[in-house]
């Protein structure tokens, strides 16, 4: 299997994402934003960071990079695509996911561990988790406040597109558990086809006991399992 880690000028979590994929033996490769063609890749990962310095809007310029045309085509063919933090923002800007990420309601950058409730275990990135499992994952973002108009939100909820929600360590939904004001406490969601996942928290930073949590490993082991299953 081969997994593409797309790097834009200003991406700074690309190395972490590459290491995460390597840890689960997913054979990652860096793809610079100006390269073209994703043939032969089995999954596409968009890392966090400040692509283009977050100029204009986070992800607004990156989504116009040459490689994004290939990412969109890959997604439309049903290939698994994961966007983390800035990667999530880029996917929304590119129209691969509904809604938008706005400035945190606390108006400050938020960097700490949060708890996520798992709501979908049938996406390529979440088969290793159990429904309602609570994960401890770090966040680090200034624009993580997920918003969509009411109609879109109804559709998202109606179709069960929400994959992760901010919860307490006990799995309960409260304002205190939500670090950025995201509507419906949405921390991550898929497109209607279920092959594109965007999430604000950083699972690649929760893969070692030494660093505080291994709850993020499931995102990557799920991917490897899904890709292996697809082949066999």
């Amino acid at each position, binding site marked *: 299997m081969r997994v593409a880690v797309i790097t834009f000028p200003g991406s700074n979590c690309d190395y972490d994402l590459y290491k995460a994929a390597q840890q689960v033996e997913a054979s990652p490769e860096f793809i610079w934003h100006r390269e073209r063609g994703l043939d032969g890749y089995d999954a596409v990962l968009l890392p966090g960071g*400040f692509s283009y310095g*977050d100029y204009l809007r986070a992800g607004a310029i990156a989504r116009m990079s040459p490689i994004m045309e290939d990412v969109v085509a890959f997604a439309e063919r049903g290939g698994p695509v994961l966007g983390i933090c800035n990667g999530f923002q880029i996917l929304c800007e590119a129209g691969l996911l509904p809604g938008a990420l706005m400035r945190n309601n606390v108006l400050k*950058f938020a*960097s700490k561990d949060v708890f996520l409730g798992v709501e979908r275990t049938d996406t390529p990135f979440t088969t290793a988790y159990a429904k309602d499992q609570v994960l401890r994952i770090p966040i*680090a973002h200034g624009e993580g406040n997920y918003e969509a108009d009411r109609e879109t939100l109804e559709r998202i909820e109606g179709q069960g597109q929400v994959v992760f929600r901010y919860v307490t*360590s006990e799995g309960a939904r409260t304002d205190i558990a939500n670090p950025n004001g995201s509507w419906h406490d949405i921390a991550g969601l898929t497109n209607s086809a279920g092959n594109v996942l965007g999430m604000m928290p950083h699972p690649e*930073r929760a893969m070692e006991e030494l*660093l505080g949590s291994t709850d993020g490993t499931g995102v990557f082991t799920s991917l490897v399992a899904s890709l292996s299953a697809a082949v066999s």
Partner: protein
Amino acid sequence: MVDPREGDPEITAELVADHGLSEDEYEQIKRIMGRTPTFTELGVFSAMWSEHCGYKNSRPLLSLLPTQAPWVIQGPGENAGVIDVGEGYALAFKIESHNHPSAVEPYQGAATGVGGILRDIFTMGARPVAILDSLRFGDLDTGRVKYLFSGVVSGVGDYGNCMGVPNIGGEVVFDRGYEGNPIVNAMCLGLMKHEDLITASASGDGNPLMAVGARTGRDGIHGATFASEELSEDSDESSRPRVQVGDPFTEKLLLEASLALIASGAISGIQDMGAAGITSSASEMAGRGGSGVEIDMALVPVREPNMTPYEILLSESQERMLVVAEKGKESEVVRILEKWELEAKVIGRVTSDGRFRVLEGGRTVADIPALPLTEECPTYEREGVEGEDIIALREMDLSEHLIPRGDLTKSFLMLLGSPNVASKQWVYHQYDTTVRTSTVVRPGAASGVIRIRGTNRAVAATTDCNGRFVYLEPRTGALGAMAEAARNLVCVGATPTAITNNLNFGNPLKPHIYYQFREAVGGMSDACEMFETPVTGGNVSFYNETDGAAIYPTPVIGMVGVIEDVSKITAQAFQNEGDDIVLLGANTAEMGGSEYLYVTADLVAGAPPAVDLLGERALQHCVLALIHDRLLSSAHDCSEGGLACAIAESALGNGEAPFGADVTIKDDLAPVAALFAESQGRVVISCDPSRTGEVLRIAERHDVPALKIGNVGPQGGAFRITLHEGSVECGVDEAASVYFGAIPAIMNGPTASET
């Protein structure tokens, strides 16, 4: 012979003075030049011979600091110091200040301070892996201080976050001693393999000099000179043009491009353009290489029209590097920079004539002998006399303050909720602390820790200084800063290895300030010898005064240590209900300079707690031995707020699940002293009761006083410290609410919820 440039002002005594040069210095310049300098040449000298670049008033004393050890790869003199950390890895590290710009424009001042120190690290060939920030402001009860505090934290955060370098620690201090002059010191750590190290010297006659990165504009001109002056009422708006403006996105690209350049073999030297921009980078490179440089201003990429050579030379536009390419490899350099969408332009060349020569098109506008420019900057040893008022303050009788003001529990909570002691989560929750997936210990602990991937090792770092202690007795205060830093490192299991330092002082021309500086450097030096932590570099920031009032003398120690086994890294917070709590070290009644005194009596007085260097070293070795044998659940040193606050912080942890505690202090001391004195040489540890005997035995072997003082209680339980007279008693959740709520309540106001 260089003709004056058309349009340049005439050289007058007043112009020379405006450039921050004394009459004697000007005479020396004329001697070096053999004639009157041109306006451009005057600008060059004024920058290079400013306090900030020339270290005029500090160099003689700094030369007394210990700088050598077998593990030091690069000592003072380069952009950053470098030490060996084992298994072929080297750590580059340094601390720097950006005080004056932050007073005028806190966001950009702090941001560009971080930008500058990052460049100092990656210009050595090391990838930046961690940032620490040491910040000081006036009391957190005015709009102005909240504005400065908020702006600085945003600036530090935004720049570091965008660069993708985690913040792993630091300090924030609030005291009226820093009212007009905030202190913003930023430290950076970088990792590399030994063979990646590159220096910043210009050598190889004919090698091209290339300007790389952002274009040059008019921002920050005379930033170095500005940093070398006191602030006054007029400093606000008029100083704003001297504050540099940062762009972390460009710097991120520059970082990647620079590391790629260094790895490519296409360059022989690289230097960042920091204070005094092209001037300092080019002349320092020439000075180090023993050669000369020739630069043509017409070739420098500029972003504003009609810039004069003077402006281009002194601009402090950010995110620029000066590169010495190998002859013939210019296009390779351009290619590498182009991938990162940055410019690279040949602007001159290395020569062998030992001159720093500047052209404007075909014409020479400056021609200075390179070595004298950097080496013959005059240095001064000033008169140092202790201020009479300080002696009186130090000798003040504090016994009336040992009488408790009502309830001890109330005093304890007041201290716990004072901004100096209270949790700084409000700050570091704005800093990305986990990017690069190598942060083993995040802010809020004794020291920050970064693991070295591919090994079992880690490096730890801390920044420490109690300015009040240094103010009350400079030598003791400096010893105390070193002792505290070393305790903080050993508490996570790191062996103190080396230091960088940021010396923040007032006007050194004033005898009582020079006295503070001289004594502080002396104390620091002695502690470096005793702890075997050589100085590898640092920064001096003088003239931190407003309207004649100086800050407390504040020598910030940035100490780094090595951890050989990551599995032994020890937490600061209690881990298990029922664990024994043991105090290493002895309690005293030394209330001088304590936070208790400040908060209850608005007083900074008394003698600062004494430092016993031999005792501190024994304590360090003891803690490391205990950690080596895996005997400890937690370790936390005592500092602001004394023993009571150290125990409280161990109990509270990061607030997720605070533990109760039941402690008895049997010392025959006034209760206020036992609880809140900030005596040196103490560490509070917790351990499984079955190991306490072994802990006490090891302490005895090291000649360190040790006593079990209590037990860790249940989560959410009671927090109790019993003395022979009186007690502190509250629910730990109440303590948590005070400790974690203090700064958010002040900064967010009554309407906001706490994050």
